[in-house]
């Protein structure tokens, strides 16, 4: 639901003792609200770094990143965390669930950032999401879930509060073909239903094929594929 506008964005990493490693050089890009974008490129080209920059996880070396008019590149760390909390849902290759928390609590985790008590409506929505994604009921302990099931829990966590942006980093790379297909469908359906802008960094041709806009990052350049 948020349009994206990049102006002269450069991304670089300090790489001591050598000069900073440049990931992206002076890049402009405009994406409409609700766009569904696949981001591809060779390993190590900087897909994850770009995604982190778009999510405000890492600062950029130069340029502006505007999501619906708000330039997150000029926000400080705390303000970016606040912006992230309000606007983004993130999905990672390795799920990054919290061991020791129950399945439901993993989905509800972001709620605790702001609230002491979990509102009933959010708890119900979390359960509904898990049921809708086909997780067994009653919910088993986190430790016994398969990788595909874990990624579905992570996806439920990302979309719990209906963020206008969904960012996914290789969401299917550590899953078998069947689980990958299922996660891919869920991800695209979720974004389509809520109208969220979706950006997926991936190598998975099946997943990429379902995304209308394709970007490719290679050798510090970001290009739009036809």
């Amino acid at each position, binding site marked *: 639901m948020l349009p994206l506008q990049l102006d002269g964005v450069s991304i670089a990493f300090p790489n001591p003792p050598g000069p900073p490693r440049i990931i992206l050089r002076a890049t402009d890009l405009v994406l409409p609200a609700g766009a569904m974008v696949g981001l591809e490129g060779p390993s190590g080209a900087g897909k994850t770094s770009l995604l982190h920059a778009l999510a405000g996880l890492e600062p950029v070396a130069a340029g502006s990143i505007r999501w619906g008019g708000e330039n997150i590149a000029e926000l400080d760390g705390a303000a970016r965390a606040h912006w992230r*909390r309000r606007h983004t849902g993130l999905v990672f290759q390795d799920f990054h669930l919290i061991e020791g928390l129950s399945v439901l609590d993993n989905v509800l985790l972001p709620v605790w950032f702001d609230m002491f008590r979990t509102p009933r409506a959010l708890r119900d929505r979390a359960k509904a999401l898990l049921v809708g994604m086909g997780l067994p009921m009653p919910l088993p302990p986190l430790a016994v879930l398969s990788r595909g099931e874990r990624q579905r829990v992570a996806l439920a966590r990302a979309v719990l509060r209906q963020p206008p942006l969904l960012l996914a980093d290789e969401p299917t790379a550590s899953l078998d073909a069947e689980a990958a297909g299922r996660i891919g469908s869920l991800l695209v359906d979720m974004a389509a239903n809520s109208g969220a802008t979706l950006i997926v960094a991936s190598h998975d041709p099946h997943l990429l094929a379902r995304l209308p806009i394709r970007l490719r990052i290679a050798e510090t350049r970001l290009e739009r594929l036809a």
Partner: protein
Amino acid sequence: MNPFPLALAGLRHRRGTALALALLVALGVALGVGVGALERSLRQGAARAADAFPLIVGAPGSPTQLVLTAVYLQPDTVTLVPGGVLTRLAADAQAAWVSPIGFGDRWRDKPVVGVAPEFVTLGGRRALAEGRVFAAENEAVIGTAVPLAMGDQLIPAHGLAHAGADEDDADTHHHGDSPYTVVGRLPPSGTPWDHAILVPIERVWEIHGLGNGHAEGAERIGPPWEAAQGIPAVVVQPRDFPGAYALRARYRDAQSNAVFPAEVLVSLFRLMGDVQAVLSAMAMASAVLVLAAVFLAFSGLVAARSRDFAVLRALGAPWRFVLAAVWLELALVLLGGVAVGLGFGWLGGWMAADALGRHARVAVTVAPGWDEVLLALAVLVAGMLGALLPALVVWRRPPGEALKR
């Protein structure tokens, strides 16, 4: 904001490590608490034992030995104070009452101690738990820990009670001719006197073939003693405060020495205080070492969870939430450890004090004291402040790195 579920999840997920850490903290705290509680209770128990002994007069020599003999019934080879001193004391206008303390024999492991009737009631201050004061030479009043009943009879055996007596001399002693009859019982005092059998001093002198301390033919019990014999110590109750000092001054001469047990105990406690200072320093050092070890382990714990914390930040957690979650996890470990350590310390101190007290026949009670609570709180506060460090380190690390790894 609600960081509790996350902190609890961390503890649950690594419960072995968390438990080991809490135990480590508990041990360090218990050591400090135990030493403090033990020292305090021993001092209180020892001081209470001296309550019945305002002034003690004995032969010139070590005041400490005199106190050990009269208060704690631990006669070493004691020099006797001449009977004349007792006669003079009994007639002294500044003494409310006096009583000799003379060691007779033993009945089982209970010492038979010759005293005056005034000592049994402390001049009327102490009511008996049972029965009455002895009124004849063959009657006895027993301490609360002596396993006899009113009316029971006992025959002491010539024993260890007066070291220095020559065993070959035994035939010169006339014990056992007639047994003692128990006529009274003292209330519990928590001192070695709970194990004593109190008999008239006259009988003790007679048994040793020294007459009964009175003029020929007299069969009285108690002062005055016209023909008093040597005894290890005399307890004196002064009439008033100035009298106490006057008496102490008057009976410090070539024949006798007079001491306030409380004064002697103070100097003993000063020595004990030095020992305690060393023990406390060691306990503190161990607590510091334990805390240092715990911090190393905390850093490890935090490093092991750095990915979790990076995930929190990626999901947009505010810094205070991450800080609170990390800190809370460590603080809960500390809190558990300190609480258990406080309990362990008191329990350990109590057990040690009980064992030591039983050995010395002094009742020692370890009551929880504020000193130990303050020590535990100090460890807790230091630990909780220290726990902020790993929490801050977590915040300073960029989240992206941990996520890519």
